[in-house]
């Protein structure tokens, strides 16, 4: 049995070292063992066989940043829930109503970002013109 708290982490540490060695060998080994041949055509970025236009390291949509920020805000809430859950049985109703209040506060923000459209990904659909009814032979009418 482990004698100290610190010793408990010993296998994790060893595992981390092994994982590091393994990961490093996976990434590097083929560069060492495999053959090497370069050509300018081989070196171009893959873009379905066409010469790429522009740089891939371009600015990208703000929505990705928004998701990251919303995630951080709401994930902090989730992190608060963990210690709360562990001591829940001791605090019972007090814990329940306290967390209800906390979640309610977070939910206000959640509904706000929902209403603001931060969670909508597609741009609104174009208005659709109504199609003809079934069976009408528009082709024949046009002809």
């Amino acid at each position, binding site marked *: 049995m482990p004698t100290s708290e610190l010793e408990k982490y010993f296998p994790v540490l060893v595992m981390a070292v092994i994982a590091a060695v393994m990961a490093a060998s996976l990434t590097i080994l083929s560069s060492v063992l495999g053959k090497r041949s370069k*050509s*300018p*055509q081989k070196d171009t970025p893959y*873009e*379905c*066989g*066409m*010469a*790429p*236009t*522009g740089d891939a390291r*371009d*600015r*990208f*949509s*703000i*929505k*990705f940043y928004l998701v990251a920020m919303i995630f951080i805000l709401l994930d902090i809430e989730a992190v608060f829930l963990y210690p709360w859950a562990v001591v829940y049985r001791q605090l019972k109703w007090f814990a329940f109503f306290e967390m209800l209040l906390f979640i309610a506060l977070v939910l206000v923000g959640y509904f706000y970002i929902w209403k603001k459209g931060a969670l909508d*990904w*597609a*741009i609104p*659909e*174009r208005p*659709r*013109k109504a*199609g*003809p*009814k*079934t*069976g*009408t*032979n*528009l*082709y*024949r009418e*046009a002809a």
Partner: protein
Amino acid sequence: MRSAIDYPVESRPAPEPQESPTGQRRMTLNMGPQHPSTHGVLRIVIELEGETITRAEPDIGYLHTGIEKQCETKTWQQVTTLTDRVDYLSNLANNLVYALTVEKLLELEIPERAKYLRVMMSEFSRINSHLVWLGTHVLDIGAMSMFFYCFREREELLRVLEFFSGQRMMTSYIRVGGVALDAPRGWEKMVRKFVDVFPSRVDEYENLLEKNPIWLNRTKGVGYISVEDMLELGVTGPMLRGAGIAMDARRTEPYSGYEKFDFRVCTHTDNDVYARYRVRLEEMRESLKIIKQCLEGMPGGAFQADAPKVVLPEREKMKTQMEALIYHFKIVTEGFRVPKGEVYQAIESPRGEIAYYIVSDGTSKPYRLHMRTPSFGNLQGLSPMIEGALIADTIAALGSMDFVLGDTDR
């Protein structure tokens, strides 16, 4: 010496990305020609804002084979084998439309049995094409297994085609003046086997897809294009029928005896990817119905027209009769002559309306042969269909068009 790969590929450069009105930077992305979902070598230049497509331009021509021009150097009956190669999935439709066009010029009367055989084979071809379409379309949307189920049935079907023509894909079965060979002994059994099994298989596909919420989400309301646009761009076939327009050359301008068959022109009003899927699925059932009618009502008699100057004589006759031998020699060495004139004939291929326009100058080779292929027309609808949609919708929309690049580029 430089190898071929060192020479840069010359192509239309993609336009530079623009700043959008909202100030967001746009990205230009090449989809194709080497891309798993463009079903060949279609190139689409798309302009993206995040994941949303703001502009899309299809760029075709990567599979230009010059078949139309090649046809001018072949004799009339040699062209048949070239028409096979235009659209490898519905080669029989191409055979048929070519044969019909030339027969129109020749004013040739085709015996009933040949007509029935033609109808039956082209309906087989339609099922074949729809099967490949369904498999690849569903694969594009992400479900792998469907592809293999569809190809299981296609295998059965190709076996039938092989049984009739000796070839699985490039059958060249329908020829000017009739069909290449009479239906072989035991064909009823072969066809009946397929006809008996296939309905349950179509039900199986339907079961797999119809109640799958992801499939419905991916297809419903996706790939919409207005009917006016479709008619202006020349979109035909299941795409147009999916928009509620019952346009089907088999019904509107019957050919090869289609007026005798009882079938429904399948339509759907939703005008989206889902509607096109429904139309094609139901068309498979209708095609099967036509095949069944062929099976039951197959008339006897000759399978080729009685036109010794056009149709090759039977082997036995050629060996015993002087005239037959002369005709055979003439047809094989210089080909038959087609009277001067020009003619246009349209039929319904699995993809839409396919039509050949042939000009003959009275020699044994076509002067000009133009193909109005459905894939080309359908592909024109791409831009209005996917502008404003997401990248994933491009794939669904592309799949729903069911184009064959060989058919587009000729």
